[in-house]
């Protein structure tokens, strides 16, 4: 679904590239998380996948990016918007600011595409149901909590039926309940709609539970690519500024003290930690 081939990109007026020779392939229906420290190039990669680079941000782009068979470089943004949806960190900035109700806010993109009213009503109803915000339909989108607003932003993009959803730290301004709401909604989308999701995220505990695959980046390069268990327990990544889940940290300390079951991989989720420590107590 997403093919990135040897992509290098520099923002205008900057000395070095923000992305260095990135190659990545994300198949349909996969939940791919991108993790890494600040300035790793994660948001830049998201903008490149959604076509904002080079259409919105100028600069020097080398390599090829193809989304659902469309060459990002030669496809206009308004056409790409039908294939790729992009969600940002700040939910408030994604609200159009012109609509009185959540229902109307979700229809904003469909209005722009010239969708007939009957079809809009049907699709808005379906999407609100899917994302679990039907109870907010008649509320003002500007009067919601952060988690609710972010789910409205996701629903607004999904209403346009994109094949790919890219989320740039969508839970960075949300509390734990809001974060769970967003992650659960995304997981439901993948299973119900076979949508492909790329999410940039710092909350590794959530990534470990929900993602199918984790790509670790630092200084514009991909350092590791694999399952959450493989990438999030890779000790060599720590020196590049990547974190680890609190469960992995506890298991690593236990392992250093000889209290983690021999041969058992370090855990990344709460459930794995419980099983690991139970096994350690038994032995």
């Amino acid at each position, binding site marked *: 679904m997403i093919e990135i081939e040897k992509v290098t990109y520099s923002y205008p007026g900057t000395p070095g590239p923000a992305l260095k020779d990135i190659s990545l392939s994300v198949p349909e229906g996969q939940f791919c998380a991108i993790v890494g420290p600040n300035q790793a190039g994660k948001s830049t990669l998201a903008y490149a996948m959604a076509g904002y680079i080079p259409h919105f941000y100028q600069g020097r782009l080398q390599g090829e990016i193809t989304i659902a068979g469309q060459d990002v470089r030669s496809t206009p943004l308004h056409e790409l918007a039908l294939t790729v949806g992009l969600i940002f960190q700040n939910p408030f900035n*994604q609200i159009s600011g012109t609509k009185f109700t959540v229902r109307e806010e979700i229809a904003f993109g469909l209005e722009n595409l010239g969708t007939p009213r009957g079809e809009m009503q049907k699709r808005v109803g379906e999407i609100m149901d899917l994302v679990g915000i039907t109870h907010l339909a008649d509320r003002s989108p500007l009067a919601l*909590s952060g988690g609710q607003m972010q789910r409205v932003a996701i629903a607004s993009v999904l209403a346009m039926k994109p094949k790919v959803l890219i989320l740039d730290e969508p839970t960075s301004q949300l509390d734990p309940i809001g974060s769970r709401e967003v992650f659960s909604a995304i997981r439901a989308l993948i299973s119900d709609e076979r949508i492909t999701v790329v999410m940039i995220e710092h909350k590794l505990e959530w990534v470990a539970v929900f993602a199918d695959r984790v790509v670790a980046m630092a200084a514009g390069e991909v350092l590791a690519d694999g399952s959450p268990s493989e990438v999030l327990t890779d000790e060599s990544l720590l020196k590049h500024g990547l974190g680890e889940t609190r469960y992995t940290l506890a298991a690593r300390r236990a392992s250093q003290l000889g209290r983690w079951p021999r041969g058992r991989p370090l855990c990344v989720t709460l459930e794995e930690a419980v099983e690991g420590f139970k096994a350690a107590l038994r032995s």
Partner: protein
Amino acid sequence: MSEAFSLYADRDSFIHRLHPLTKLALAGFALLGGLALPGPWLSFALLALVLVPLALLGKVLRQLLNSAWRVALPFAISVFLIQGFLWSGGTPVLGVGPLTLKQEGLLFATASTGRILTVVSTFLWFALTTRPDTLMTSLVQRGLSSNLAYIIVATIQIIPRFQQRAATILDAQRSRGLETQGGLRQRVRGILPLVVPLILSSLVDVEERALAVEARGFNHPGRKTSFIEINEGRWEASIRWGIILGMIALIGLSIWLRTI
């Protein structure tokens, strides 16, 4: 989180069901009447005979009166004091110490108050009974640029958020010792550390919002549709033409009244 900024009062009324352009035409008629009719009393007559019934029909009379007097009262007091006492020449009505109240000044102040009250009430009546998005949608359907309509509505709606951010920056800078009260020089010096972060953070927001709106096909070529249905009664187009003819008649009446 901030609520949408709008004076709109959701009611089930005949006025609320009218097409936004019909209400715009009615508001234009009341505004023109308030400004064009000569003499001190005709604008009050217009208020009583046109705007009050319209507000009653729209079930917003209480809100309209509550807000209108708050806006008009300070103006009325100052104009009565200034024009009443400082009118040059004129017929004395009452002496207050060294000052004398003049009849012509009082009549001028009455006319000015009537006009300002009509303008404020007209604006309030329109804002209380018309959702800004339906107005903009109907204007876009009649040829207004959708970009311009977006800018107008989004700007109005985002005002509370902007105020909220300004208050946060003010608190943050005060907690770091910034003096924002005191003499004029101190206040002027305090403006820069407030304005710069406000503008910079707003620019960042604008960029992100532009990207988000773009992601939702805002610049997609072709005809846009509307989710909300704006109903137009069978006779509303004819009524609007009637109001326009009424406005022309009002201008004629105003000219005639000034000549007799």
